[in-house]
């Protein structure tokens, strides 16, 4: 059973200021409508890319969005700033109507685009619970029945009869979220509202929202930039980019699609490794960092190719002992998979004289690595003495796996990092 279905929804916005210039467009639009013609300004409009300079005064914040959401799903909506996430939530929560298209819903929708909407600073916590609850669509009876539960969840019982203007901002948010969390609706829409509140309370909120989907079978739409929260809470995902759906599917895949550079980015080689160095010791400068003779931070390894040759050149103000370090992470940079630290392992470190230097090290990935996308952190250091350079979460590599006898490829997501050997006497 579907809880929600969006059919070709679009939302157009006009840029710039409202003034005398707008009225001529309004009149023209009205004139077209009187004659039964289509709105002339719906034909034009740029895609929603905030960084580029467009010609049109109109932009499509969302364009022809179609999706279906099953009852009981928790859907994470992700994307960069200005991708249309909040616009989508606004349309779903009926704050504003779509320019074109239809949204079908099944069940009561409660939206939480902000916590504490309508809280009046002069009124007490108790009064505000009732006011806010009513604004969110609860009846007084419902609120009265859940009042103790709400206060208990918020943990501000002691202050409940004090005007909320005396509350700390954290207490305010706690009370506000507690009201919202006790809404009885089939569909819950939550914008990034958990950014406030302490870690303890954030955890409690996520837990509560988790209960809502898992225990009560309600549908949640959740917008957040906190990928860890999205991943734990949601089972499905929608990735919006420039007002279009870029990817839709399981939450893990969606997050990867969002975080991992696209094929295009892999090809365009626009970003160099040495452009994003996290730490550099004052005694050295870096001119270039190359991976297999390319300075791009995206690198694809062909099947059977398992060597990563790093060439780092720069200038030393003093003579230094340099060793290389590498850490391999999964695509989300969450899990450490492997390290390579020749300096620590062998105990021998090469000494470089003052002046220009070129440092070379080749790291060999296991032949039996699976197919996937990985993040690589590198560093230059003198083991146990000093760190000279750190480059974190910048280099991305794509690997191919060996193809098995059955023609199957082993993928990291399904099979893990390594394909283990077998048999004793081989």
């Amino acid at each position, binding site marked *: 059973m579907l809880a929600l279905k969006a059919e070709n929804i679009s939302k157009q916005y006009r840029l710039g200021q409202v003034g005398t210039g707008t009225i001529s467009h309004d009149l023209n639009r009205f004139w077209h409508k009187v004659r039964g013609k289509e709105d002339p300004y719906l034909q034009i409009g740029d895609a929603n890319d905030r960084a580029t300079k467009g010609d049109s005064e109109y932009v499509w914040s969302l364009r022809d969005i179609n999706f279906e959401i099953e009852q009981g799903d928790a859907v994470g909506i992700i994307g960069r700033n200005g991708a249309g996430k909040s616009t989508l939530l606004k349309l779903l929560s009926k704050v504003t109507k779509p320019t074109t298209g239809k949204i079908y819903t099944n069940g009561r929708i409660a939206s939480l685009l902000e916590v504490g909407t309508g809280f009046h600073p002069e009124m007490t916590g108790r009064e505000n619970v009732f*006011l806010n609850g009513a604004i969110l669509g609860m009846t007084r009876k419902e609120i009265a029945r859940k009042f103790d539960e709400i206060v208990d969840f918020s943990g501000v019982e002691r202050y409940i009869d004090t005007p909320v203007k005396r509350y700390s901002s954290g207490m305010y948010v706690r009370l506000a979220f507690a009201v919202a969390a006790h809404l009885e609706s089939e569909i819950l829409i939550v914008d990034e509202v958990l950014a406030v509140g302490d870690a303890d309370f954030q955890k409690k909120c996520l837990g509560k929202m988790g209960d809502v989907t898992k225990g009560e079978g309600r549908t949640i739409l959740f917008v957040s930039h906190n990928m860890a929260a999205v991943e734990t809470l949601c089972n499905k995902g929608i990735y919006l980019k420039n007002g279009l759906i870029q990817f839709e599917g399981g939450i893990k895949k969606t997050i990867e699609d969002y975080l991992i550079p696209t094929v295009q980015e892999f090809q365009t080689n626009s970003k160099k490794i040495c452009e994003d160095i996290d730490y550099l010791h004052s005694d050295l400068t870096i001119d270039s960092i190359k991976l297999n003779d390319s300075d791009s931070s995206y690198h694809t390894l062909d099947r059977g190719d398992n060597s990563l040759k790093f060439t780092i050149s720069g200038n030393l103000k003093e003579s230094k002992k340099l060793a290389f370090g590498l850490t391999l992470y999964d695509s989300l940079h969450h899990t450490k998979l492997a390290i390579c630290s020749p300096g620590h392992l062998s105990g021998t470190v090469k000494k470089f004289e003052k002046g220009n230097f070129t440092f070379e090290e080749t790291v060999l990935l296991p032949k039996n690595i699976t197919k996937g996308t990985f993040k690589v952190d590198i560093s230059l250091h003198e083991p146990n003495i000093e760190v000279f350079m750190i480059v974190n979460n910048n280099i991305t590599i794509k690997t191919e796996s060996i193809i098995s006898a059955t023609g199957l490829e082993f993928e990291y997501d399904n099979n893990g990092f390594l394909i283990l050997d077998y048999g004793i006497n081989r």
Partner: protein
Amino acid sequence: MSEPQQKWTETIEDSHSLFDLKLKEVWRYKDLVYMFVKRDFVAGFKQTILGPLWFFINPILTTFVFLIVFSKIANLSTDGAPPLLFYLAGVTLWNYFSSSLTGTSYTFAGNAGIFGKVYFPRLVTPISIVLSNLMRFGVQMLLFIIIWAYYLSKGEVNPNWWILATPFLIVLMALFALGVGMIFSALTTKYKDLNMLLGFGVSLYMYATPVIYPSSSLTGIFKTLSYYNPLTGVFECFKYAWMGVGSFSVTMLGISTIIILILLAIGTVIFNKVEKTFMDTV
């Protein structure tokens, strides 16, 4: 086993009927109306010492100023009614109308913060504004009745059965404020020009309404014009009912009622049209 039939409880669309007011939905949100009225009432007097007494102080002071300026200095007629009572009646009614009108006119502009974050039938807001002003009016009306009773005991006023029409007059005034207020609130979401007009317009409108003078003192073209001011009928009927003065006729009230209902219809339609998209332009 077959899939259960897919059903939809609601459709959000780009287009909708202008006359679909969703009054049923407004009714479902009646608790919100109650909470808004309560908020206005409670929050207005937080951290004041005199509290609701301010309800009385405002009309009393205004009445005394009117008494001095219009009765003692300007020597305007009150049709033989006790001046104090005459002005108090005018002030009480006018306060209700003007505060309801200004309140509803700022529905969108003043609540953009809430409207932008959560959906509820927008009609709830103007309705609650009119109602919370009604509460205040009720209290002030009490003051009027006390003073009226004093004059009645002295035999200085001659009320009649039209007193029973008072609730109707009040509803009429509320609907008028609601209708015009909704028109203003809707039109000012995109172009704020009308806000400028409203600011001084309301205070000027008071002089076009028989608040401080009886309409019997009007002659010629002004008398005819005053017939088309919906408030003339309301004010004259009120004064006639409670004090037995003024030039009241049923036709007058009839014209008022028709004009008010037309304005209310226009107001609701415009309001209904704007509420869906005002967030984009406000």
